[in-house]
Every structure is written in structure tokens, then in C-alpha cells.
């Protein structure tokens, strides 16, 4: 398989796409966490818990906001790459999301650069629902594009042209591609189940603070 620029693009996007899937999954977890307050109502009314909860919300929102720019820029990178590789079909599939992202980014209510996920408004059910739906849609989109890139990488036109006669690669790949939809479904269901159990166990107490801590460290080092 000759290593064309297009193939490189697909390869890179495959890798990056998996990171986007992770982002989306993380978003879903975060919104779920925002929505559910695993406390008894009496506990919730407690001023002490209030502080903790508020801090939690602020952290989650902070994290969400930090992830916005990487996600959008990665996706923007895809589009540029495909544009350069003249992969029009792939580009066409990605363009709507690009515009949506741009709209989301620049259509911010405040005058400053503060984006969505404002802790003061995100808790409104409507906003939360919207964000959650958005995250699910994005995840499914990335997941599908993941398999799409995989397909084009392995047996897309440019790959096929180069590999005529070489039957070595095509058989296992074609099998895997044939199973791609099934695999998608399985993955999605697995992720959702995973989410459920994950959240109920230790998400709020263990994983989130860790993640947040990690990202805060990163951001600190960046700023320094």
C-alpha cells in the first residue's frame, strides 16, 4: 500500500477520531454527573454540601470548557487535511459539523470569550438536555466516522488502486468492515452500560477529581 497523503490523512484522523470519541464520552459522563446529585434530599439542602456541590459543578464546567477548544481544533484539522488531500466526499461529510462548531464557538452570549457551559445556567434542565443530546450525537458521529476512516484507509479507492492483486490485506479487513455496523452497535451499548456502572460507582468521588486535577496541572504548566 503506497503511502499517499490521503492515506496519511485517514490514518491520522483515525487516531485523532478516537480521541474525539473519548472527549464525547467524557462530555456525556460530565452531563450525567451534573444532572444527578447522588444525595438524599436532606443532604442536598445542607449548606456544607452546597459548597462541595458548587465546587463540583464549577470544576466540571471548567473542564468542559477546556475541552471545547481542543475538540473543535482537532475537527477543524480534519477538515483542512481532507481539503488538502482533495477528499471531497469526506470533507463534505465533515463540513456541517464544522459549521455547527463555529456557530457554537462564536455565538456566545457574553461579550468576552466565555463559552457555553456556564455554571450559572448549565443546570437548567433545558440546557442540560440540549448539551447531553449534543454530546450523544457527536459521539455517534465520531464513532461512525471512525469506521468510515478505517474503511477508506484500508480499502478506499486510493488504497485499492495501489493494492490490486495483493489479496493479502483485503480479506480480514473486508470481514471487519462488514461487521462495522454491528461493531458500532456493540460498542455503543457497551459504552452506555459502562457509563451506567461507572457513574454509580466512583465517578464523582474518584475519577472526576483525578481527571480534573490532572487537567489543572496541565493547564498550570501551560500557563507557566
Amino acid at each position, binding site marked *: 500500500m503506497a503511502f499517499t497523503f490521503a492515506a496519511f490523512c485517514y490514518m491520522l484522523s483515525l487516531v485523532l477520531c478516537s480521541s474525539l470519541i473519548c472527549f464525547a464520552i467524557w462530555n456525556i459522563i460530565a452531563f450525567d454527573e451534573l*444532572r444527578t*446529585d447522588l444525595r438524599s*434530599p*436532606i*443532604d*442536598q*439542602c*445542607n*449548606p*456544607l*454540601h*452546597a*459548597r462541595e*456541590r*458548587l*465546587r463540583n*459543578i*464549577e470544576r466540571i464546567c471548567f473542564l468542559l470548557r477546556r475541552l471545547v477548544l481542543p475538540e473543535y481544533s482537532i475537527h477543524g484539522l480534519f477538515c483542512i487535511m481532507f481539503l488538502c488531500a482533495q477528499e471531497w466526499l469526506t470533507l463534505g461529510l465533515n463540513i456541517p459539523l464544522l459549521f455547527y462548531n463555529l456557530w457554537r464557538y462564536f455565538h456566545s*452570549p*457574553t*461579550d*468576552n470569550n*466565555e463559552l457555553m457551559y*456556564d*455554571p*450559572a*445556567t448549565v*443546570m*437548567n*434542565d*433545558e440546557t*442540560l*438536555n440540549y448539551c447531553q443530546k449534543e454530546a450523544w450525537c457527536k459521539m455517534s458521529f465520531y464513532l461512525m466516522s471512525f469506521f468510515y476512516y478505517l474503511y477508506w484507509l484500508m480499502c478506499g479507492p486510493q488504497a485499492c488502486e495501489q493494492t490490486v492483486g495483493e489479496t493479502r490485506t483485503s480479506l480480514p479487513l473486508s470481514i471487519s468492515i462488514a461487521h462495522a455496523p454491528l461493531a458500532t452497535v456493540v460498542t455503543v451499548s457497551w459504552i452506555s452500560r459502562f457509563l451506567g456502572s461507572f457513574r454509580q460507582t466512583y465517578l464523582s468521588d474518584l475519577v472526576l477529581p483525578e481527571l480534573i486535577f490532572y487537567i489543572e496541572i496541565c493547564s498550570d504548566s501551560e500557563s507557566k
Partner: protein
Amino acid sequence: MQQPLSTGHGAPLQNSSSAPEHHQQVPNKAPLAPTAGQYDFTYYQNDYQAPVHNIIRPSLCPTSSGSPQGPGQIYTTLPLGPSLIAPQGPNLIAARPQLDHIPQQAGYVPSGGYYPGQVSYNVPFQSTTQGVYPHSTTSVNNAHPGFSYHHAMPVSSTQYSVPLTSQTLHPASSQPLVGVLPSRVKPLPETRQRHTQASFQPYPAGNTGAAWQPLPEASVTTPTSPIVNPTVTSSSANSQTSTVPPLLMPHHVNQSYLPDRPNVATLPAVGAPHARRPPPSAHQPVSASASPAPASEAQEGVDTSSSSSSSTNTSLPNNYDALEGGSYQDSSSSATTVPAPSDPRSSMSTKPFGYAYPTLQPAYQNVASPSHSVRQPTGPGYSPGPQQFTRPFSSVNQLSSAMEGLTFQNRQAEALKQVSLLQERNILPPVPIQSPQSNLSPELQKLNCSPDLFRCTLMNIPQTQALLNKAKLPLGLLLHPFRDLTHLPVITSSTIVRCRSCRTYINPFVSFLDQRRWKCNLCYRVNDVPEEFMYNPLTRSYGEPHKRPEVQTATVEFIASSDYMLRPPQPAVYLFVFDVSHNAVESGYLNICCQSLLENFDKLPGDSRTRIGFISFDSTVHFFNLQEGLSQPQMLIVSDIEDIFIPTPDSLLVNLHESKELVKDLLKVLPTMFTSTRETHSALGPALQAAFKLMSATGGRISVFQTQLPSVGVGHLLSREDPNQRSTTKGVHHLGPATDFYKKLALDCSGQQVAVDLFLLSGQYTDMASLACMSKYSAGSIFYYPSFHHIHNPAQVEKFQKDLKRYLIRKIGFEAVMRIRCTKGLSIHTFHGNFFVRSTDLLSLANINPDSGFAVQMSIEESLVDTSIVCFQAALLYTSSKGERRIRVHTLCLPVVNSVADIYAGADVQAITCLLATMAVDRSVSSSLSDARDALINAVVDSFTAYRSTVSNLQQSVLVAPNSLRLFALYILALLKQQAFRTGTSTRLDERVFAMCEIKTQPLVHLMLMIHPNLYRIDNLTDEASIIVGDKMIPQPPILQLSAEKLSKEGAFLMDCGSVMYLWIGKNCNSSFISEVLGFSNYASMPQNMTQLPELNTTLSQRTNSFVSWLRDSRPFLSIIYVVKDDGPFKANFLQKLVEDRTESALSYYEFLLHIQQQISK
């Protein structure tokens, strides 16, 4: 007594001939054309309204111009054919009430009572109209005895004895109460207890004994048949003429029947007190029932530790307020200056806010009533619909149940009656509008939460979201949860009964399956009744859980057990942050502020733990060390504003009582300390950070006084307003914050239970949009005094003083949370107000104050087919200023309906308008102002379109609205012309943003005045139709439409816009009015900017003043009164509020209707 009817039929001539006479006195006698011509407003340039009317008049009502009945009826005498008009014409509305009580009087007067009870109406009119329109038959009496409920269990009393005894009464507030009726003071072992006790007693005493007792007799005896007759005759006159096209229009009917209000005219003292609803502050007439006395005795017997708070639970709310520290009854009663000691009470209890709305009388209000059945209509002529009838009642109750079915249908028919908006000229009723009735059975209705506290936009909830979408009306709730109440049962109990799965508090709408089990009305889980709940301390009986106060009233307050607190309840902590830059000193606010603090020092709500602190700032931050033992306050200056620190953390917030002298010294010195300052910068951000650091350990309230744009340190702002763009129609920018510093700070504060209240006193642009964030998200309140100056603007100074007083002494709740639950299937998706949403149904309120309202939007997620009622419960958990954890629970119950017609019948136009206004504010910040305006217009268009396509069956060309929504278009138009949403008129950005903040936080009654002011003619106030408050007669002029057409040069008109009032004096105004009320010899000698009404010793002046002060007392904050002359500076403001007229940039009401019609037929 059969006579009235028969003579009535003979009398129409006589009666109609009497009408013109009365027209001589009525305000609107001037015909339209002359009125229009007389106006020499440059503003309107003579063609302001007239052309429009002139165009329409010929087409719509060719016959009317010559009609002798006067100008106002032009639009009501319709040539379009009686069949179409009959159900819509205002004439019928006017006639109906009259008719309604014909049989009533005829049948019942012999039995001795005037309006003896729940009476059926079997009106001859029935055949011609859609039905009978009885006023509600809900029996309003004997609802609940005001309970005084002490938990008799020794556990609870001992449990609470410690915190409770630590509460001290405010000497200031308890003293007058003690003095009220010393004879009632019961001997008690301790003096302090005596105070407590005494303060509870005078209430019932003053009521039943002094003020109220004489009334019943009078009411029964005076109305004799000759007085009754005219009403009957006139009404039957109407009934006869009603099929004839030229009819009296409601307004004129009123006027002509003025003398027919016999009860009022001859016996104002009788008709008045009950005739109208009490104001928001004193919202239920005190229920002086038999219960208080035994209750207090019980207290003596059972609870000698004098749990003062639990004994406040009787119907003696003011004492509760007095205990709690602040409530504006206090200030209002002092403002009314009623001399007799018992009068403040009665004035409070009767101080009416709106007109009586019979069926809506909240249950607990009516306890006192059976003893004096004086409910009389304030003048039948005034009521355009039967609902305005005050329902008389006596002990006769039996009929009510028989009438229920009929009532529902009629009420429904009334609310659904189609109103053709373009043809209905006088659409605004002359009395305040009340919330509509739901289809609920009267028993449940009686129990329901007061509409002042809890209101739903749709009184009948649709079954499914699809049905709701069909009706195109917003579904939401408007709440005023912490409002000052005059009657609030407070319950001390060791267990608070709640549903085990959804944690709903037990409420009147749960069902008891048997003695030991109850079914939750929100999640339908079956719960056990705890043993303790079986005992009813009110009746001292066992085994009657359904008689407990929790199950008898929809609004109760629990004193929470220790389960509800993890840390001890916080003390009241107040921190004042003053701007002392040159600009601030120049405005002179500091002096007023310190003075006010000194005056109200002892009235600050709190207990022995109360703490207070002060910070001031210019370009540096100053702290004041007030540690006990110092000889004088120390000022500590921190100039490092980049990294602010607290110099002496322990001694800046000090105990109010221990350091009292030091604090007072400081307040005396503070205004003089900075008089010669040259510092112009303002470091608000660092000062707020310091304040937050200082407060974060305890929580509490920060009051920030700011007079200019913060210029240094974090959170500094730049001017974003372009003065040239103030009147642009293109789009208004900068409605959102410029920085999120203030929002973040507010969130931090919210997490530490600190609320930030902002007082903005500034002439220049101060970026309200950014600064307001500090209060918005920390549940604070915002006050704005544009162009405040201690010399140049005395009106603002007075307002600031009064507002500050109210602010300082009003009740306050700390570390509060509010949760709103609703029946399974409904879900709340958006909240409006000042708070932080902590989880999807939990609002975090660092402070709660009695003047803030909230709104929520709801959606129907699951079909409600299985249920016939839905309930909403708002539970507010807070720490009182006495350090008690309390839960205030409001429950509202509404029926579920399955037809669009029913939804429209129950639409509450005021609530809908207010909810739409809050939604529009959100829209204008998140999207744009023009989007928000379009959305408002679309709301009207959509709902009217939906109505026409689903319910109405009229031909296409007519713009019809259900009767319940007939004011919808008017209110939306008023909203579009409101400061917050108007375009094309010069509006300063700060004022616009402030108006938006107000829309989000004001409770419904005040918000409605802001949107659609009330206009009264007051130069000819009479004692007719007046009500009695205390010993004062309060005249009740009818509300006029907001149109220049209603003004006349000969009159004086008062426009009540909530926070301001405009008194417009016509050029040819009666010179006696000018001299007797305003104290000037003639029009020309009046000054340009008058902002006070002098108290003169003339009848007219007294009447006017009592009316104005009555209006003022009905709201927490002072309304400035501006006297408007034609050439004066306030004229433009006044004219802009005439929302029905066209302005250079906005449509008139008629044009707006045409616009809507055009949109609909598109």
C-alpha cells in the same frame, strides 16, 4: 320583597333618565372629538390618536357618533348584527352582574340578610346569553379556624426550648404591640413572656371586638328595600334593553349607577372593609376566630417555656413578623400614621389590594367572616363580569354544593366567551384583575394556595404536551414564596411527615386511604401515617390525621428538626461595602445611608449572635476594626489591591450588641471622613473579594453601595454604552456582562451562603449588566437610583431613604434552598429569578427576602390521563434571623383537562404575560432584543390563531380572543413599550438592564404595574365606593385605560407604575383641586418638578392623600410621585406610559391589533 322585581320592570325609564345627571360628574363625559382636539401636546402633534379612530369609526359604528350615551361607547354599539355581538358586547357584561342578583335579592332579602349566602341564580336572562353567570358559589366562610398549634409532646418542647428562649423580641417592635390592648395581657410568670403573650393577644381582640363587631349589625339592618330597589330596577332595565343595539357601555353603566350602590353610599363603613382584597403585605384579613384564645391558654398550660416562635403560629402573623424583625407592615403602618392603637392591625387586615374575588378567597382568610357577614359588592355597576361581584355570604352554606356544577359551567362559559378585540373598545375592566378560576371543586379550591403566593399560567393543566402545544400558551409557575404573610401556621413537630420516595411534604391534597396510610399526591406512593401525626393538638383529639393543620392549609411553615442541618444555623451577618470615592461623596448618599442605619440599628433582624462589619473603598480598600474594648473605631487601609488580604480577620465582623457603641460611632463619623477626598478611582472588585473573604466563614449578606464604574483592580469595567445608540431600533448590544469576574464571585459567594445586594446610585453609565451579575447568581437584590444626588434630586433621596429602611428591617432568611416538586409527568425545565440552580430541581438561595419572586417554565413529559388533579409544591428551607431552621411549604393544586377550550378558560393572562416577560429577558440576553420582541408578538399571534382554529367557529376576518385572554394583546403591547423591551425611544442601557432585572425578580403584582400601569382620575374623588382602612376612607376611583383620550384638561390623573407614580394635572384643572390638594393658587403657579403631595387640611386633600398612601402601602418600596405639568420635565415619561396610544416609534393598541390580525390571516 317581590316588589323590587315588578317595580324594576317599570323603572327603566326613570333610571336611564337619571344616568345623564351622573354623567355630569363622571370623568369621561367629554366627547371624544373635543378631547382629542383639546390636546395641545406637542408630543402628539394633534393627530396622535384621532386619525386612527376617525378611520375606524365610520366603518365600525356608523350610528354611534350621534348617540347620546357619550363617546366611549363608540365601539360597542355595533352594527354587525346582534347574533354575533350579543355574547361579546360589553353591555352584556355590564348588565349581567346586575341581573345576577335580582333573584337573589328578591328571594332573600326578606330573610333578613342583605346578601344572605350562596344563592343560586336563575336569571331570566339565560335564554338570551350563553348562560347564567353567577358569581362563584364557593362558600368562603368557615374555612379554617386559624390554628394555633402547639405540639403538646414534651419531647418537642424541650427540644426547642434552648434555641427558642434565646430569642429576644425586638423591643421596638414588641412594645407597640403590647400597648395595643393591655387589657388582654395575661399574667405570666416572666416579663418577657408577657411581652410575647401580649403581642399575640391584641390581634383577635382588636378585630373581633373593636373594629369588627359593629359591622354585622349595621350590615343587616341598613340595607332596606328602597335602597336595594334602584339596583334591581336598573339591572332589569338593562335586561330589557339588552337586545336593543345601542346599549350602555360598561363604563357608563358604572357611572350612571353610582348612586345605586346603596350600601356603599349610605354605609361606607359597612361595605368597605370586606369589599376588596387586602394588599399583598397584609394579605389575609386577620382571622379572628374562636381559636386564638383557647390556644393561648393552651400555651400557658402546656408550654410555659414560651416557645415564642411556636406560639406565633396562631393567626397573628404580624407578631411573627415583629419577632422576626422586619416586615413592611411595620413601616406601612407608621406611614399611614393611624392614631388609634388597634388601627394599624385592622388597617393591615383590611388594607385591600384588589377587589374581592369571591371564590378565590384563600381558605384561611375567611375565618373571621361568618361572624360578620358583610360581604357586599363595591358597586355592582363597576363589575364588567360577574366575577367581580363580591360574594356575600352568611352561614347559609347548603346551597353551595348544589350549585357547584352549574357554577363550573358558567364560569367556563364566561371565561370562554369570545371577545372581538377590534370591536371591544373599553376592554380594560375598571377594577384590578384577579386570577381566573380553575375547574377545581370548591372544597379543594378552598384549600388551595393563595394566588398571591403561587400562581400558574394555566389554571387548568392540559393532559398532554400535544394538547399544550395546540393551545400555544406557555406553561409555568410564578412564585412569591417568602412573602410577608399575615397568617401563617407554624408547626413544631419532632417528625415532619413526608413521602418516603419523593420527599413531598404532607399537604391538603394527599388522600388518606385509611387512618394509618396516606397516598402521596405527587408520586402516588402509599405512606404510613406516623403515630405522632395521629394526635391533633388543635382539637386535642386522637385519630384524626386529616384534621391536622398540615392537611388543612396549603401554606405552612415547619420548624425543622436537627436532621435538616449539618452545621449549626448561621447567625445573621451583615457586611456593608461603601463606595467613598469623590463621586460617591459628591452624591451625598453616605450620609443618608449611615443615618438610616443608625435609625434602624435596633431593628436589624437578628438575635444575640448578629454580626456586622463595614468596608469602604476608593482606589484602596479600608477596613474598620470594631473590636470590643477599643475606644474608637480603627480604620485599616489596604492599598495592595492586586492581592487583597484581610488585615485583622477577627475584629472586622463584630457582634452587633457587644460593639454597639463603636458601630454607632463609626456610622456617625463615616460620612465626614471622606468629605475632602480627591480619589476618583473605584476598586470595587478588590473590595468585593475582601468582603467575600471576610464573609466566607459564616455566610450572610453583603450590601454594596456603588456610584460609578469600577476603574481599578480586578473586575474593572469600561464604558460600553454609546449614547447615540440609545434610541436605535436596530439592536441593543451589551445586555450581557463584560466580564465574568462578578459572576464567578457571585458563584463563590453562593457556595459560601453569601448574598450580595447591590445599590447602584449613579448618574452615569455604570455597566449594570456586568455589576448585576454579583446579585443575580448569589440570590441578592438590585436597587438602582439613577441620577441620585442629595440636593438636586430630593425625590430619589426620599426613595432611597425609605427603600433602605425597608431593606434593613425586612425579614431575611439565610442559607436557603428552594425545591419545587410537581406531580409525576410534569417537569420543570427553566427557572427565572435570582439564584443559583444547584441541581435540576433545587435552587440555591444564599439569602431569601420577602420581596423577590420566581418563575419557572414547565413541560408535560408524560401524559396525565390517569389523574384528574396535579399538584405543585414549593418548599423553602431557610435559617431565620433568629437562627432557626424553618421550612415554608406552599402547595398548589390544579385540575387536569382534556380540551383546548378548558385550557383557554383557565388561562391567567397576567401570569402568562409575566412569564413571557421573563422568557423575553432571557431571549434578549442570549439572542437579541429584536428576537425577544418578535417572540412576544408571536406569542399573541400564535395563541389567537390556535384559539380561532380550535375553539372559535367564527368567520376568518374577526380577531377574537377568549374572554380570559382579552387583555393579552394589550399587555404584550405594554410589554413591548416597557423600558426593558422598547426600541426607538431613548432608553439608557443601565435603565434597560435594570428593568430586565426587575422583570426577572419582581413578584407578579408589582410586575404587572410595571408593565401596565393603572390610571385613575383623582380630581373628583368621592367617598362613594370607598373602602375603610383603619379609620380612613380610601376612595376607589375606577381604573382608566392608558390612553390620552381618557385624559381631560379639566382633570387630574394619577398613573401608578409601581415604583413611580405620575400625577398629571390638566391645564384647566379645577382650581379647587390645585389649591386644596396641591396647595397652589392656580395652575401657573405650580412648580415644574413637584414630587410631593402636601398634607393639607381639606377633605379633598385628605382623600387624595389617603388614596395615594394606600397605593403606596401596598408595595414594599416607596413609589416616587411626580407631578406632571404639560410643560414639565416628566411629561414625556408620562406620555410614554400611555401604552394604548401611538408614539413616534410604536404602534397604538388598535394598530397593534390590526397587525396581529394581519399576521393571523397570513
